């Protein structure tokens, strides 16, 4: 019998029904039941009431330890006192103004001081804005057309970054995308040759953190080879650090893997949930970045800049990458050991700060989805298909509690499948 009672979601359901009547799919995108894979939907909270630190509470009053961190933005903890104070102070002074706040300059200077490859910073709102700007810069800079992607890529949802078979996408919109296996240098050479050198850039995440499969970390040697190829062939190397950025290394994930990107895209962990993204780049691309026509109504608002400055300074003070590695490792060691008690093989992959896991007793994720659902319905918010995120507010007690609940959820799953050789 389960030690932790399951939550109920009566109020969540009521709110979600209202959402369905007013919003396509109720909640669309990665925060909703469809892309978020709430399997089965009854086990998941659908609407949040409030959040603080590493926790959020749904509209039924259920408390969750959140390992998705709003899919990344929550890096210090929800409603971080220091970041919020800086943002609120700036709001009182002005936010979206005709004459841009000096906070933009302070923010850009801080990024230059923090990010290894940054000689400048260009601001926007979302990860897709940043990757799109980078690709535009690469084409403008090189005068070339093709962009090389690594298999399993995700660089946002703008048309160019989707695939030809996605709804609403024309084949012409992705005709200049070429996809190769990760770090396949022969394939990269082939793309160059087959396109007679008409290749502007490689765009890639720091490592393969795709969904539904074990994540694969990169090595400095692999990245060095790609860097050299780009240098030898006059191509730009764009690192999409939207998801991983600042969780491995405050100087950028390229720095973590020992190389220097031409352009690097940041978003999620940049401002602890305040809405901004940016592209940082090397000096040789700066004049091109100036020439690209790209702006938005809220891109230079001051409040997120103030939040970003406070967030980066606090991440530096706490040395969050080291903290995340330690916390992630402690959590994963505990979960794997708990799984073993039940004869459950929990396979972990990726960087501990952004761990991915799956139950490997079957090869189709059924058990894993069941276990994740049982964890979520007992207050541990995991995802069954996506990497997770550590934030700085996660305490050792939270980790111990997580492992205990997860252990309980393993028992529930084991009991449900007496024929699989699992131990209750």
């Amino acid at each position, binding site marked *: 019998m389960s030690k932790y009672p399951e939550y109920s979601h009566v109020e969540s359901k009521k709110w979600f029904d209202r959402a*369905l009547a007013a919003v*396509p799919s109720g909640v669309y995108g990665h925060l909703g*039941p469809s892309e978020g894979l709430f*399997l089965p939907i009854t086990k998941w909270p659908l609407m949040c009431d409030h959040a603080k630190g590493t926790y959020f509470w749904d509209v039924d009053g259920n408390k969750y330890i959140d390992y998705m961190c709003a899919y990344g933005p929550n890096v210090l903890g929800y409603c971080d006192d220091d970041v919020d104070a800086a943002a609120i102070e700036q709001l009182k002074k002005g936010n979206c103004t005709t004459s841009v706040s000096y906070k933009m300059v302070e923010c850009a200077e801080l990024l230059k001081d923090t990010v290894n490859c940054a000689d400048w910073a260009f601001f926007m709102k979302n990860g897709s804005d940043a990757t799109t700007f980078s690709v535009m810069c690469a084409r403008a800079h090189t005068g070339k057309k093709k962009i090389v992607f690594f298999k399993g890529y995700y660089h946002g949802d703008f048309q160019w970054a989707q695939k*030809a*078979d*996605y*709804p609403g996408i024309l084949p012409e919109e992705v005709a200049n995308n070429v996809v190769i296996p990760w770090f396949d240098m022969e394939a990269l050479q082939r793309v160059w040759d087959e396109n007679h050198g008409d290749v502007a850039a490689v765009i890639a995440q720091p490592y393969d953190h795709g969904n539904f499969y074990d994540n694969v970390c990169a090595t400095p040697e692999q990245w060095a080879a790609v860097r050299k190829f780009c240098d030898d062939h006059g191509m730009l190397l764009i690192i999409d650090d939207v998801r991983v950025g600042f969780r491995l290394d405050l100087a950028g994930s390229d720095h973590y893997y020992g190389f220097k990107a031409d352009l690097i895209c940041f978003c999620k962990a940049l401002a602890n949930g305040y809405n901004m993204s940016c592209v940082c780049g090397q000096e040789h691309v700066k004049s091109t970045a100036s020439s690209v026509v790209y702006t938005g109504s809220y891109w230079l608002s001051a409040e997120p800049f103030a939040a970003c400055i406070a967030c980066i300074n606090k991440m530096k003070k706490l040395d969050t990458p080291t903290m995340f590695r330690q916390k992630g490792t402690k959590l994963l060691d505990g979960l794997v050991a708990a799984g073993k008690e039940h004869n459950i093989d929990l396979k972990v992959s990726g960087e501990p700060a952004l761990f991915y896991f799956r139950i490997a007793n079957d090869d189709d*994720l059924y058990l894993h989805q069941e276990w994740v659902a049982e964890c979520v319905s007992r207050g541990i918010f995991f995802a069954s298909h996506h990497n997770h995120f550590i934030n700085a507010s996660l305490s050792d007690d939270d980790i111990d509690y997580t492992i205990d609940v997860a252990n309980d959820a393993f028992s529930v799953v084991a009991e449900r499948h007496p024929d699989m050789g699992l131990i209750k």
Partner: protein
Amino acid sequence: MKDARAMAFVNAYGVLACLENVCDLVDEAKAICADLKNPVALGFAVKNGPSFTLSFTKDGCKFIEGVDDCTCKMSFTSPEAFNNLIDNSVPGIPTKNPVQVLTFLLGPFTKLTNIMQKYLQPDAKDMKNADFFEKSTILTMYVIGGAICALGNTDEISKLSASYIVDGEISMGITDKVYITITARNHYLTLTKDKAKKPRAKMEFKTIELANGLFNGTASTMGELCAGNIYMAGMINMIDNINRILDRVAIYLA
């Protein structure tokens, strides 16, 4: 956006292959088969397109790949010519046992395809009958299953979706009504009109009404998923990619 060759495979593996289910489910069609004096195996040979046989006996109809065992055969000079059979009832050239081709084509075959059309393109009045509604929806599901496989193997955009599908069985069904299995092997898709033995991914519609709404475009897959009316489990990326092909099916069968 439609490719004639891919359309020909949809017409073969989706539409005409559904005759085996029409002959199994609809009494009127069963009676036509029961009245057959001799078995007829009508082959369809399409240049640069599908090659298959519809074998009719007193017990019903069976879709068989290839034309090796047909008793009579129609040949088509191109996928377009074959599609013209479906769209405008223009027959191909009888190239084996022309008398049997013409006799069967003008008699039982036309009657059976008319019945199939009644169920696949139903009028609102017929759909008020619960039994008709259910059979129409089930037959549509079979057509869609065949069309998904046909497009996944031949339509350039759908092939891209299929290229992301890992090996294994995908189960699709309407709870307690009907199940089909799409099997992926090296990104080639095949349909089995039966429940999967060991599916790696499952997608199940809660009710026949919901399935019908999804098939005719009045319900949203995403919306119903979010409302909890579609059950999914397993390797959801397999289902994701099947759903992308399903979008293409809607274009081809529109």
